């Protein structure tokens, strides 16, 4: 029976990307010069897994590149090569390169092989450099290779090469190893002369096609280190008989490699029998999601209870009479409880820890702080705070921008900090926690804070505020969220173009969230992002417009008022407005926008729901308020088509469909003066 290997390929890619995340995370934790062996080991194991898996699936470019990476890491974990900042940076670049390779292989796209070749050359150059404890050439006393070998007990290759006897055990194939691939890798090291031994090949009729019966004896003509040859067979440890002897020093053979390996195991140095798969935590993947078995069991349990309740109600329905009304009410109440619990559990399945979003930040802070010449300590907290998978995917870019802004504009250089009496190293806090049904994410720095005077001056210069406007410090801070606003003296490729913060706010608002800024001059700034825990459910205010019901997101509502005639103004070219305290707010008649038959067409006969979006307020004219409720959002785009002014739909308790309003879109619609029907045709 043939097996479709492609189903495993997807898993390989997922695990490899997880492994790369582990490598990156641990590389950032490495202390150059005093590296933790266990950390290096973790990085090595991740690379080792990627190499083996990519070779299994025939991704030769990945396997070959990872092989060099792995050799360097192996020397580092053995203490034979120092962990220098340059080596760490090179390894980080290599991780990026591997990500690109895997992505291009997965998506069948062209990859920049030149960059990979360049990195590989740099890695090989690093491998070619003297190791820790190597003698300077001028200090070296020439010692015959044979003497060194005898003294160390380890044969090394001089100019000849290696004689290799490779006899796989019968079960080798079942471990995923393939001699074709192994010998191909040996060929890449030098000229290889191979002789097969098929003395153990049984009769065709009696053989098991999945067992290995062949062996090979090879001469590898390459002046390379023995470890490089051993590494080729790393995955076959315990699954073959292997002898590697130098061709020139055949007379001084040390004990066969297999015996030496047994000694290594006794000495507790057998690392290759450790984890063969990266044991990283799951990564957020737009194509799939990993769910803990406990969550799945909980859902299965709840479905079971739902079935029982449904069965009970079904039995009750047969021959129902009014004497059983209490049982019916009880049954419906039970059904409601089951459904709510099931809904909560299913929503929990989509919840992922925010660490998936935070994981990008340490690397970015590391690279950016080096680029900007700043010293920064990043402190993370609340990484295990869970939120909806979709929110996690979409909050990443805004968070990255906030962190970049803090690094570029908030935190000072070491010299500036010392001059200000601060520690040389700046601190950036990134934290997340639950509060009141929302998730709060804070980006806080101890930099020089926002310069309120400069912000206000720039806002006046750009006519965003009146010169005599009296603004609170918080209102001044929020000016930086306006489009095109930037007080940066220079535009760097990091930030300063003024196109970031307004996009950040818009992205956060599109998630149903909000952003607040607080700052203290000289002490630092805090950006607080508030997000709903899930995008699938919305807290909404249902409103009636004629016979239609619409849902207004609660997060957008400021207040609801009954309008009085003296509050209404009509402005030529701008339609109707009403005076809300000290500002004039445009009125949007929803029945006009959506072409509904409203019961109230006079403003005084209905209600105004004042909402805010994109920094603008409008008043939505409706017939009546119906109530607040949680609604499940159904995509209109998926089930029908995209409609401007509408962000989705929901099904009410009576089975009717209610459309969920898209407040920012309505504001834009109102400014254009078109109806939804007109725009729908062009959507």
């Amino acid at each position: 029976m043939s097996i479709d290997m492609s189903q495993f390929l997807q898993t390989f890619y997922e695990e490899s990307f997880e492994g790369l995340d582990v490598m990156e995370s641990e590389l950032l934790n490495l202390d150059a010069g005093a590296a933790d062996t266990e950390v290096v080991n973790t990085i090595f194991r991740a690379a080792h897994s990627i190499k083996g898996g990519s070779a299994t699936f025939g991704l030769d470019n990945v396997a070959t590149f990872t092989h060099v990476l792995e050799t360097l890491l192996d020397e580092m974990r053995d203490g034979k090569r120092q962990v220098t900042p340059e080596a760490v940076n090179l390894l980080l670049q290599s991780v990026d390169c591997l990500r690109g390779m895997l992505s291009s292989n997965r998506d069948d796209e062209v990859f920049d092989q030149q960059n990979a070749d360049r990195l590989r050359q740099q890695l090989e150059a690093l491998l070619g450099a003297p190791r820790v404890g190597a003698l300077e050439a001028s200090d070296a006393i020439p010692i015959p290779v044979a003497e060194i070998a005898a003294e160390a007990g380890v044969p090394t290759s001089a100019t000849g090469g290696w004689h290799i006897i490779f006899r796989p055990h019968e079960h080798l194939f079942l471990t995923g190893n393939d001699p074709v691939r192994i010998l191909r890798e040996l060929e890449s090291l030098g000229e290889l002369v191979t002789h097969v031994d098929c003395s153990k090949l049984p009769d065709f009729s009696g053989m098991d096609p999945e067992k290995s019966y062949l062996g090979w004896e090879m001469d590898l003509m390459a002046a390379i280190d023995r470890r490089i040859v051993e590494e080729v067979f790393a995955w076959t440890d315990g699954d073959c008989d292997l002898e590697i002897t130098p061709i020139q020093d055949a007379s001084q053979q040390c004990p066969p490699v297999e015996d030496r390996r047994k000694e290594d195991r006794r000495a507790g140095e057998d690392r290759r029998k450790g984890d063969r798969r990266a044991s990283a935590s799951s990564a957020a993947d737009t194509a799939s999601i990993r769910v803990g078995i406990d969550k799945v069991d909980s859902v299965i349990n709840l479905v079971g209870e739902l079935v029982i309740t449904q069965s009970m109600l079904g039995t009750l329905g047969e021959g129902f009479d009014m004497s059983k009304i209490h049982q019916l009410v009880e049954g419906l109440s039970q059904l409601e409880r089951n459904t709510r619990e099931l809904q909560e559990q299913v929503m929990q399945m989509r919840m992922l820890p925010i660490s998936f979003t935070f994981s990008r930040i340490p690397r970015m802070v590391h690279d950016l702080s080096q680029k900007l010449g700043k010293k920064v300590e990043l402190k993370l907290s609340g990484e295990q705070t869970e939120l909806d998978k979709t929110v996690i995917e979409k909050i990443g870019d805004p968070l990255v921008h906030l962190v970049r802004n803090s690094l570029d504009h908030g935190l000072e250089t070491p010299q500036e900090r010392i001059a200000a009496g601060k520690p040389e190293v700046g601190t950036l806090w990134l934290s997340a926690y639950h509060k009141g049904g929302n998730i709060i994410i804070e980006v806080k720095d101890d930099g020089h804070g926002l310069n309120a005077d400069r912000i206000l001056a720039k806002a006046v210069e750009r006519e965003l505020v009146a010169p005599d406007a009296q603004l609170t410090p918080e209102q001044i801070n929020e000016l930086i969220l306006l489009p095109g606003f930037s007080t940066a003296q220079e535009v760097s490729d990091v930030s300063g173009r003024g196109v970031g913060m307004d996009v950040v706010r818009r992205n956060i608002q599109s998630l149903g969230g909000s952003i607040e800024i607080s700052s203290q001059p000289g002490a630092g700034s805090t950006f607080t992002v508030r997000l709903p825990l899930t995008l699938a459910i919305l807290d909404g205010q249902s409103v009636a417009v004629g016979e239609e019901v619409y849902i207004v997101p609660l997060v957008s509502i400021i207040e609801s008022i009954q309008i009085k005639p003296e509050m209404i103004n009509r402005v030529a070219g701008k339609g109707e407005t009403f005076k809300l305290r000290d500002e004039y707010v445009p009125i949007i008649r929803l029945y006009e926008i959506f072409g509904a038959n409203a019961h109230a067409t006079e403003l005084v006969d209905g209600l105004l729901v004042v909402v805010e979006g994109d920094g603008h307020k409008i008043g939505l004219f409706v017939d009546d308020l119906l109530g607040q409720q949680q609604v499940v959002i159904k995509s209109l785009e998926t089930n029908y088509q995209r409609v401007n002014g509408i962000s989705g739909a929901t099904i009410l308790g009576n089975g009717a469909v209610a459309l969920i309003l898209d407040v920012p879109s309505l504001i834009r619609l109102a400014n254009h003066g078109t109806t939804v029907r007109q725009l729908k045709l062009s959507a």
Partner: protein
Amino acid sequence: MAGTKVSKKTTSAGARKPRSAIINCEESLDITVAGDIHGKLSKALEEKRPVIIDTAKVKRTDAAILQLLCAFSQAANHAKTGFQWRKPSEEFMAAAKRLDLTALLELPVQGIQGKDS
């Protein structure tokens, strides 16, 4: 049966020449199909049918398959049923050469570039 024409090939000795069993190999010829290939080749041996192995499409193969075909080669020669290769792909031949199995498999030597499989 009356009216039924049967075309048959005959050898010079007058005996009916058995029809060849053609094994068409797909792009990936590896351990995942080894059991299937073993079955087909075994059947051909039992029926004493010469085998034609078409590896023109093969882009990827492994030691398990090559080993299997070596054993079959020996069995076919011993049983004198014979077998032949039809358009062995470069990748297939390169893999066989890598494992030093070209001679055992009786593959043509010419045209092997040592290309990766």
